């Protein structure tokens, strides 16, 4: 029986459960003996000019080895912002603040001490003289207070041409609904904060241990920021305590730690506090959507427009580019004859925006799924029916959307119907009607969200997505896999071993996965964008199959038989001559005479498009606005599933995070740009009491783009659940006149919406 598709328990677990993972902060390595500790002095102001920095008192403090500011780093190159050409080049992001600070938390100076407790004391002694400037905030920051005077504007760039929007787009629509929707700023908040350990060898090479999502990308970032050849950088990835999109590449602090290690000729280590993590690690989302949707009274959606404003934070990073993905997925799973989308990217005096689970696609889905519900409410139709009427028909040949996305395979109506059926949708509507009729204080809300998303993207159509893998069988019967992916909770050690085991006939316990050491694996795309299984896993399969073919030739020579006559017996991991079971040679024997190793690159024709429908059921107390999330039922079709245990885990995690955005989490700033959510006491990160157990229904429509039939599953959960929960809360109070509530749909917002909908009612 094939191991593929079975619920194999993770081989990596025993370590995590007993001695714990070895995260960057846990590293014990003789190269790091005697390491100094780095602490960052961070801006307490959202926007200010720096007049002077006095480090003298800090230098006198116990244990201080050095204090460094931007002036000390003047010899390092300045790297232009992401998407140069589309984003204003003047908006460059230095390693430490130079003349200005642009967000609370921006690193201004680095203090280096012998031991960590000394550093916490010494950073208080760095005196920075600031001239405060007005903070530019929100989706319309204006140009009165410019973050970058040289740019002359707080607009970083545009995606699409707003002046080319069709004034007649909604002509002929019987119903047109328009709504501005905030897709709020949230914190990725991986449980392990950012960290680094760095040391330079006598050979002039840097070795850096950094929690990341792809060591190879981190190596490139470090090298370009340090102005050195990539060959001089080795990145080693320790265990990584969650990332959610926010640990790609290298951040400013990582580069400064590497620079300090070189400057002092001594190993240096850094681990940020949670306070620092919540203000200085990139945030996610932060888009404003103005949706306009039009159609017929009988439920045909005929036109849709999405106007996006992306708050990129103080420095345009990947977040400034993500509206491109949002635009690409504008029409989602629907067949909408006319649609258009544009985006404007602004800079504000807030933490920069980066990728966060879904990165650009959840925003598209959230806008569209609210729009569909607004339209359904306007015409008095059932949200499920409106979706069914407008979803694309099933297709097995790739479908090209008006925005250029090429959907590989899909059956969106089936996913919708399956989810509604699993939820007991008709019964829920009946119960809702009863509670409405009786005027129950606790009203029931049912939210539906259908989605299609994009996983495993390459760098455009000319460079198809790909990943490499190396598989080696050893003489002792074990095997080693090298992968360019970078697991940090996804379970690749188990999953990749399953794939290799299936081909090689070697039990998974005897297969070791290695990743994240750039000297061992110089190339790789890391783990993000839900790409790993479909490309990294497929590469492992391809390498293992190529290894078997190589072994077949060697076995033929060994057995003096024709390669075509050999049969690979997986139960013994050996080649037999067909019809002569005694003439046999095991892989181990071949490996003993000559290394049995294959490196290969798997290329996929393009990205894949998983899809599904989420249904959320909430109870809303109409007197207090309190929302209780009672059920989440999902269909997430990500093609063929390799290991249901792992795939379900990915779905659960995504659903939890997505639901949390809908009704709990938000990064909040005051009117001066001071962050108010700087600890887990203030940032309402979801806990076990706020979510229910999730109900998963299975559906698998394989992709033809890789032999595993797999699409990505890492982000789907967070894409469908957010609008499903939001829609459910609005649905619970829709009969009371509420049309829309922005996320997070907190008790206060629900209560306020209820009051606003019923003027004259008791206040």
């Amino acid at each position: 029986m094939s191991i593929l598709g079975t619920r194999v328990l993770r081989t990596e677990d025993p370590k995590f459960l007993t001695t714990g993972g070895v995260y960057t902060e846990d590293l014990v390595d003789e190269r790091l003996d005697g390491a100094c500790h780095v602490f960052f002095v961070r801006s307490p102001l959202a926007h200010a000019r720096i007049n002077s920095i006095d480090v003298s008192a800090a230098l006198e403090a116990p244990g201080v080895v050095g204090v460094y500011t931007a002036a000390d780093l003047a010899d390092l190159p300045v790297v232009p912002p992401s998407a140069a050409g589309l984003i204003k080049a003047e908006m460059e992001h230095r390693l430490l603040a130079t003349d200005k600070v642009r967000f609370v938390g921006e690193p201004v100076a680095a203090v280096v001490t012998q031991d960590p407790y000394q550093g916490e004391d010494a950073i208080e002694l760095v005196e920075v003289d600031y001239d405060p400037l007005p903070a530019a905030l929100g989706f319309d920051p204006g140009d009165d207070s410019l973050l970058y005077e040289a740019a002359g504007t707080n607009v970083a760039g545009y995606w699409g041409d707003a002046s080319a929007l069709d004034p007649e787009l909604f002509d002929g629509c019987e119903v047109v609904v328009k709504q501005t929707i905030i897709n709020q700023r949230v914190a990725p908040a991986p449980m392990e904060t950012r960290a680094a350990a760095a040391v330079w060898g006598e050979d002039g090479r840097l070795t850096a241990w950094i929690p990341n999502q792809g060591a190879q990308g981190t190596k490139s970032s470090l090298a370009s920021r340090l102005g050195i050849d990539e060959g001089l950088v080795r990145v080693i990835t320790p265990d990584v305590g969650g990332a959610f999109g926010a640990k790609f590449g290298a951040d400013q602090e990582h580069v400064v730690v590497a620079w300090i290690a070189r400057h002092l000729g001594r190993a240096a280590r850094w681990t940020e506090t949670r306070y620092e993590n919540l203000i200085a690690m990139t945030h996610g989302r932060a888009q404003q959507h103005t949706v306009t949707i039009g159609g017929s009274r009988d439920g045909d959606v005929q036109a849709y427009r999405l106007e996006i404003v992306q708050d990129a934070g103080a420095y345009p990073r990947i977040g400034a580019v993500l509206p491109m993905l949002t635009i690409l997925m504008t029409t989602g799973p629907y067949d909408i004859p006319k649609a258009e989308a544009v985006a404007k990217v602004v800079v504000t005096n807030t933490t920069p925006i980066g990728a966060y689970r879904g990165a650009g696609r959840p925003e598209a889905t959230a806008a569209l799924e609210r729009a569909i519900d607004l339209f359904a409410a306007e015409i008095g139709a059932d949200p499920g029916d409106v979706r069914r009427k407008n979803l694309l028909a099933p297709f097995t040949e790739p479908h090209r959307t008006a925005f250029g996305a090429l959907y590989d395979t899909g059956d969106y109506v089936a996913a919708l119907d399956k989810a509604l059926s699993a939820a007991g949708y008709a019964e829920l509507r009946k119960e809702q009607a009863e509670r409405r009729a009786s005027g129950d204080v606790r009203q029931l809300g049912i939210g539906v969200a259908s989605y299609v998303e994009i996983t495993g993207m390459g760098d455009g159509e000319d460079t198809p997505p790909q990943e490499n893998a190396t598989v080696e069988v050893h003489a002792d019967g074990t095997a080693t896999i090298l992968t360019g992916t970078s697991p940090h909770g996804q379970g690749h050690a188990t999953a990749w071993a399953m794939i290799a085991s299936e081909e090689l006939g070697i039990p998974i316990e005897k297969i070791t996965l290695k990743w994240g050491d750039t000297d061992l694996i110089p190339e790789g795309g890391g783990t993000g964008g839900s790409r790993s299984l479909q490309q990294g896993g497929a590469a492992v399969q391809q390498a293992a199959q190529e290894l078997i073919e190589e072994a077949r030739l060697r076995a033929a020579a060994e057995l003096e038989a024709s390669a075509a006559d050999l049969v690979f017996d997986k139960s013994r991991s050996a080649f037999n001559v067909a019809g002569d079971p005694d003439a046999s040679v095991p892989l181990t024997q071949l490996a003993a005479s000559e290394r049995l190793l294959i490196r290969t690159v798997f290329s996929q024709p393009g990205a894949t498009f998983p899809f599904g429908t989420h249904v959320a059921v909430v109870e809303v107390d109409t007197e207090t606005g309190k929302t209780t999330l009672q059920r989440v039922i999902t269909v997430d079709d990500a093609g063929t599933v390799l290991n249901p245990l792992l795939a379900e885990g990915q779905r659960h995690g995504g659903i939890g995070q997505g639901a949390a955005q809908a009704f709990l989490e938000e990064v909040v700033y005051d009117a001066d740009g001071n962050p108010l959510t700087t600890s887990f006491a203030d940032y309402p990160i979801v806990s076990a009491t706020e979510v229910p157990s999730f109900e998963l229904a299975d559906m698998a429509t394989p992709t033809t783009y890789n032999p595993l039939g797999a699409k990505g599953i890492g982000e789907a959960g967070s894409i469908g659940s957010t609008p499903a929960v939001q829609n459910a809360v609005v649905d619970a109070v829709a009969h009371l006149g509420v049309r829309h509530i922005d996320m997070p749909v907190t008790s206060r917002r629900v209560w306020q919406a209820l009051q606003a909908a019923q003027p004259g009612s008791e206040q």
Partner: protein
Amino acid sequence: MTHIEVTVNGEKRSGEVEPRLLLVHYLREVLGLRAANVGCDTTSCGACTVLLDGKSVKSCTVLAVQASGHEVTTAEGLSVDGELHPVQAAFRQNHGLQCGFCTPGMVMAAVGLLSENPHPTEAQVREGLEGNLCRCTGYHNIVRSVLAAADQANAADQANTEVTA
């Protein structure tokens, strides 16, 4: 510096520590027991949870000197002879962990919870673990793990009772 004597995972440890040294830093940096992690600054996340005299505590909010004269159990001390503790085994069986960062603390919190309430309902498990944050699992499989560990312990109790009877 202050002299402390602590029993950690059954072993007597003693030494001189700074009065402000946190128990979690004592465990991690002085004793080299690094399963417990520091995930926040505000006693919110529970990644540092250990047992102090059998009750779960957040070791970032206990001074090493406060642990003097007491018994501390960490995830490292939970398994016996390489065999996973039933709660650890249940976490593996139910895929109750992903990145692993919250896991040692979560497991210790679960052990503490089950020692106080061996037959928890799902709601009680969720309430009991409210102070332990996980960003990967959506808590679904963590809750299943704890309930499974309780079921298993209950089944074992029942079997023992039947044998005795």
